[in-house]
């Protein structure tokens, strides 16, 4: 039995009167590649944002390596507005900022690539090294942390080498072709040395060949970096080939869960994707 890395428990996210994520429960185990699929607007990215602390959920909790990292319950105006389930089950508020979650070992990429645009590939990676600094403002300013600085740089270079990005090291990150930018974003996330990697539509906008390369790449980094991967994806080839398990979301609700074969044959999933056309 593999240990649980990520557990999302009864998470509901309500914006005003709209429920974006409805009572989500899911588990990701160590070393797994788990995918989350579903039509646009199903609440997938919202779930990612809750896990990474971009905003606290309206209700529910998130556990990482057995430890509770996020918890919230309806408050203020939400007390009246709240339409979800499990109201009253949670009473604490635990809402760390995204940087704290990153420090715990959860890294992510973004649906619309968010590289630091005025900086080179190398500098983009180097920024991720900042969170492990031991120097303070004073020692860093007066360059008294030479050894640490050198280590940061060599680690960043090493990572670029492993991910075969050496050749674009000194190019502006945003001047690269799309597929490369995605790869740089993954590299940057890896530079924070995560144990859990969240990928938000890593294959978006890629052609079939690039998607194939990406499939191999994701499998490789899982093994090389000893990662657990949780991703949102629309490319079914990629999802079915690489995933250990799949969750399917529709209108905020989890409608199916299982290994790829089960999902492929699940009538509810087909309905969600084809809009009930099967019945007619």
């Amino acid at each position: 039995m593999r240990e649980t890395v990520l557990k999302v428990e009864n998470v509901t996210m309500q914006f005003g009167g709209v429920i974006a994520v409805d009572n989500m429960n899911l588990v990701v185990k160590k070393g797994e590649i788990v995918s989350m699929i579903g039509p646009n607007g199903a609440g997938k990215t919202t779930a990612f944002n809750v896990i990474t602390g971009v905003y606290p959920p309206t209700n529910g909790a998130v556990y990482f390596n057995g430890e509770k990292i996020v918890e919230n319950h309806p408050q203020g105006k939400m007390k009246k507005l709240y339409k979800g389930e499990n109201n009253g089950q949670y009473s604490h508020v635990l809402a760390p900022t995204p940087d704290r979650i990153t420090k715990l070992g959860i890294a992510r990429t973004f649906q619309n690539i968010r590289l630091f645009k005025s900086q080179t590939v190398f500098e983009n990676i180097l920024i991720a090294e900042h969170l492990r600094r031991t120097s303070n403002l004073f020692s860093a300013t007066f360059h008294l942390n030479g050894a640490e600085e050198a280590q940061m740089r060599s680690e960043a270079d090493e990572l670029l080498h492993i991910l075969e990005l050496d050749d674009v090291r000194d190019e502006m990150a945003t001047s690269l072709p799309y597929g490369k930018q995605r790869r740089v974003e993954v590299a940057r996330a890896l530079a924070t040395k995560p144990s859990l990697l969240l990928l938000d539509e890593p294959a978006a906008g890629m052609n079939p060949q690039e998607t194939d390369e990406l499939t191999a790449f994701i499998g490789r980094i899982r093994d090389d970096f000893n990662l657990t991967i949780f991703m949102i994806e629309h490319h079914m080839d990629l999802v079915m080939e690489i995933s250990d398990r799949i969750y399917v979301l529709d209108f905020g609700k989890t409608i199916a869960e299982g290994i790829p074969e089960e999902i492929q044959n699940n009538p509810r999933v087909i309905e969600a994707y084809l809009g009930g056309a099967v019945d007619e």
Partner: protein
Amino acid sequence: MEWLSRNLPYLLAGISVGGQYALIAIGYTMVYGILRLINFAHGDIFMVAGLMMVYLSASLPIYVSIPLVIVLTVLIGFTVERVAYKPLRSAPRMSVMISAIGVSYLLQNLALYITGGLAQQYPAIPWISDQITVFGASTKRVTVITPFLTIILVVLLVALIKNTKIGMAMRAASKDFETSQLMGIKINSVISMTFIIGSFLAAIGSLLFFSNYTGVTPTIGTMPGLKAFVAAVFGGIGSIPGAVIGAFIIGICENLVMMANQYVSIDISNFKDAFAFLLLIIILFFKPTGLFGEKQTDKV
């Protein structure tokens, strides 16, 4: 009764100056709503309107110079937008704001050059500038007129925005600039219209303001301009009713400071101007987008 005659002038002055701020604040809030630009030059347009009145009324009768001043102010507002902001439409927002600061600098220096730095005496406008007595408190008629005139103008403006085609285009542009452009809205004429309305109201505001505070100096626009902007932010920038309510609150509060100054032993009168900012910071602390502002979330 004695309490009333002692304190009423402060309240009246507060309501009146609040109305004047409101007329300026609308210009800020409308421009911000559409362009996301703090038009730092708006306060100086207000000052220029005052100066033009001084010079025009010296050679022309009042009833000619008033409409002329309004037309010229509108023209200046329109020109400033065309020359200094339109070329920067695709530039980062910061550049446009810097351009606004540049225009403000230019207008002030021009005014300094023309006036030689001396305060110019604003002409007394018949009827408006007459002294009247309200509940035993003596004041100028303009003090009483201002709030009513402001409210009439605001109602007209809101009706314009609600019911006319250009008003609908303005609302669309402030909701989503790019999409409204794709929907075939002539964005440049909408923006020009915004500046025309803003400058028109600023001209009226300057007529009322300078009838009360009669010295026009090159930098006189800065403080009322800043306060009007603060009022717009206070009320939730982009919202016209918000700006008007914010302006009245700030106008009244700063005069309440002066009123309170009679009763406390230490002199707090020099916080009159700073008080607006204090209010602003307090409101932003609790409601980061102002009183009636819509909550904004970044899309991740």
